[in-house]
């Protein structure tokens, strides 16, 4: 049996850093696709119209909802890191973990708003 190589990871700051990292990677993977579709506007408007029609399908709306949620999570968790780095801490354990929950709730509200608008 190998050593566990575990760390003390099960705390809010850790999960916030994982959320920030994974949402960033997912958004980075999306950006090339985003620029490719934008390039169709300049190079092939017929293909763009075809893609936009496809993008009106429900499955794409769910994908767009995912993107909106990822953007809110990445932005709010990133703002938390900036606050940690640039504002004084109120005490030693002040990891501003409440901001993690604020970010999650903001992502939920904005995600629901997006879905309601899309339906």
């Amino acid at each position, binding site marked *: *049996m190998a*050593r*566990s*190589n*575990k*760390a*003390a*990871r099960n*705390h809010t*700051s*850790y999960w916030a*850093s994982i959320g920030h*990292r994974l949402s960033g990677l997912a958004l980075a993977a999306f950006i090339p696709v985003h620029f490719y579709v934008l390039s169709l506007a300049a190079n092939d408007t017929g293909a763009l119209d075809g893609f936009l029609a496809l993008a009106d399908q429900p499955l794409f709306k769910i994908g767009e909802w995912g993107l909106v949620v990822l953007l809110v999570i990445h932005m709010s968790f990133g703002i938390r*890191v900036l606050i*940690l*780095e*640039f504002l004084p*801490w109120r005490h*030693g*354990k*002040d*990891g501003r973990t409440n901001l993690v929950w604020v970010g999650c709730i903001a992502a939920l509200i904005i995600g629901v708003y997006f879905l309601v608008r899309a339906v």
Partner: protein
Amino acid sequence: MSTLKVKIWRGEEDGEFQSFEVPARENQTILDVVTEVQRQQEPGLSYRFACRVGVCGSCAMTVNGKPRWTCRTHINAVAKDGEITIEPLRNMPVIKDLTCDMTDFFQKWQKAGGTFKGTVTRKDKVVTIPPSSPKRQKADAGIECINCAVCYAACDTVNWDSEYLGPAALNRAWTLVNDERVGNQKEVLDKAIGDNGCSSCHSQGNCTASCPVGLSPSQSIHGLKRMSLLSFLGTEV
């Protein structure tokens, strides 16, 4: 008397767990259990300890997957169904059993500028530093470190990047750059914000969540990051 089942890492990096059973006592720390195994069952078991009261920082081990100071960790706080797994701290080479080679850990304190270099000699008058001074209070928040390496073992960034100075060394640097008696604060800051310094921190906060004496290396590292920006902008540190 009921018993505790204890699995202890034996060997070096390549090794295996060895199982023991020890009497479950009402007041028993992890260090007590390791000592009982070594004294009563396996004299060849290697581990470190000195003070047994949470001051020297030498007895840290990984207990049920988390780095802890074993002399102040009560069995009842960590035993799951009467079972305990004890391993050496991670992020450091294993010498034997529960004993790690802490050479890199302590050398990184030096690399982060951790040596105190004062501005006066013993022949000068003692400089008065008001405890209420904001810089003194920042330094005071980090000075009780016992060098146990629990934060270093808990840090994923150290695990990914063996050159990263780590939370304990950077916490030490933070106390020095806020210590008004230190004469080389710029030099310490340059080391702490240089290669493998505070900028490598991923803000996971494992160090602060694990520190047995309640310090916040994470706060110190973020303070260094803030100072590095101010230094870059030309603001006097």
